[in-house]
């Protein structure tokens, strides 16, 4: 049985499209990343799965229960933990009382265990919490009943890097314990770290559903380099480099082998170098073009011949 199955799901807000004809499923025991730029429809999908929104057409099941049927979905929710994009609590209430409330609503088998990893100041009113502490409280509240399925909407957006790592560790641990996790993100590196499979959403439609390996090979790095020598952007034109531009600081997106990049850098005196994850929007623009057909792979391949057949590259070597 699929932990989550989405079938032809369409949600319109009046005339505005939220998502259109979405179909995918999440297998039991896998970590599924739901990737897309802001406004792509990730939150709409998740809120429909949680029964907060009614599908315009199509349907979905959560742990085999139809999301359109409140009574069925309530049964499913006994085994589902949900972490919203921006968790909010009554500001006058202490964290401890929030957790007591949720314990009575659904149980708290793992409260103390989770509090050991994510420790919000329980005796202070939530109104005094920082964004990070509120997120920690939400993580404990969402998962303390030890759910089989974890649904998370941009779970690390309010966390500092240290806590992001801790959270990713938590998700990996859940997977090892046989749990299923479904989470949305607009950060490719995060999805890379913890996901088995990825669905990419763009403008309310599912673009492609592929293995993490394929995504990895196609994403690329944003490189910014400043060298002592007086060279133009042309100096960094090489296989795998896209959109090379700039003057003093030259920037480009690089999807090739690291060796090629390093060899080229060694030819100069590097004053400053910055290599970071390419923003998702940029990855999309490169693969699918702006305004191109987002549903097929043909456009992608035309747009970026360099990435053909480079599957399996795993520069960080840390994917599960």
């Amino acid at each position, binding site marked *: 049985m699929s932990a989550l199955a989405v079938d032809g799901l369409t949600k319109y*807000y009046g005339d505005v499209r939220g998502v259109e004809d979405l179909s995918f499923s999440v297998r039991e025991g896998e970590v599924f990343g739901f990737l897309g730029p802001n406004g792509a429809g990730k939150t709409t999908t998740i*809120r429909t799965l*949680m*029964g*907060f*929104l*009614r599908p315009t057409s199509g349907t979905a099941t959560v742990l085999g229960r139809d999301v359109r049927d*409140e*009574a069925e979905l*309530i*049964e499913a*929710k*006994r085994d*589902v*933990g*949900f972490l*919203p994009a*921006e*968790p*909010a*609590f*009554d500001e*006058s*209430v202490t964290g401890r*009382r929030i957790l007591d*409330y*949720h314990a*009575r*609503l*659904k149980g708290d088998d793992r409260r103390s265990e989770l509090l050991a990893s994510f420790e919000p100041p329980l005796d202070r009113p939530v109104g005094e919490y920082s964004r990070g502490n509120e997120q920690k409280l*939400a993580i404990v*509240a*969402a998962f303390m009943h030890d759910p089989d399925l974890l649904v998370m909407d941009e779970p690390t957006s309010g966390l500092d890097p240290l806590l992001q790592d801790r959270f990713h560790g938590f998700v990996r641990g859940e997977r090892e314990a046989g749990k299923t996790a479904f989470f949305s993100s607009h950060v490719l590196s995060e999805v890379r770290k913890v996901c088995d499979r990825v669905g990419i959403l763009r403008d309310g439609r599912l673009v492609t559903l592929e293995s993490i390996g394929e995504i990895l090979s196609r994403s690329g790095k944003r490189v910014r380099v400043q060298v002592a020598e007086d060279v133009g952007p042309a100096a960094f034109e090489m296989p795998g480099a896209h959109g090379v531009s700039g003057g003093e600081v030259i920037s480009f997106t690089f999807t090739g082998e690291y060796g090629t990049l390093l060899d080229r850098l060694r030819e100069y005196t590097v004053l400053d170098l910055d290599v970071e994850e390419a923003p998702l929007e940029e990855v999309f623009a490169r693969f699918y073009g702006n305004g191109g057909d987002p549903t097929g792979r043909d456009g992608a391949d035309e747009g970026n011949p360099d990435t053909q057949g480079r599957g399996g590259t795993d520069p960080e070597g840390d994917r599960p």
Partner: protein
Amino acid sequence: MTREVLRYEGRRRLKGSVYLGVGLGLFALLFAPFYPAVKESGEQLQEYVENLPPAIRAAFGLDAFTTIEGFLATEFYAFAWVLLLGVYLAYRAGGAVAGDVESGRIDMVLSAPVSRAGVVLGTVGSLLVPIAVCNLLVPPAVYATVLLAGETIAVPRLLAVHALSVPYFLACVGIGTVLSVAVGRASVAERGAIAAVFGLFLVDTLTTTDPDLEPVGAVSPTRHYDPTAVLVRAEYDLVGAGVLLAGTVALVAVAVVVFRRRDLT
């Protein structure tokens, strides 16, 4: 599950409810020093009151103003109790569910195995806390006011005026709740609830003196709860209380149906 929502939300309202009840009690006590002068003016003042336009007399529950019962009914119950507390409860009910939806607080609650109906019922139920607390704290304060003014009052009437206020306040909560689940923004629902209860009060008072329009005023909760009649004439309108309870049930039922069908965005 409704019970858990009720317990949490009710406890959250306890402190504010005590402040509210104490405040209303102190407000009632303020009138103790004024009464002897009112009683003194006797006939003259009574004559003046009886010559006021009927709508004004209806609005302020003016009857037997120079008796302690009539004085309290007008000065305290007609305004602070019926209008102020009624409007306040509708306002709080208006902001309750709407505020939780707008802020996203409801997401965490509804991610638990809780029905939307349970959330509405628990939230409505939690507003029984301010109603109960005020009805516990205010009668002793009013009784003290009477004693301080050197008067006596029939305790059964005092108890009845409070007991019969409960269905009235529930109806106000019901009005606020319907707006709360139907309107997307809490501030709009809150203001709408204030306008609705106050508007209905105006409809009641403006129609009460016109035989043709008089039945129209029956849509207002204030028509079915008259502290002056209870305190001055010992008239206990049990039918009115029944109408208010039935109205509350209908309003809450509508709220549940509306809220179950709604998208939570």
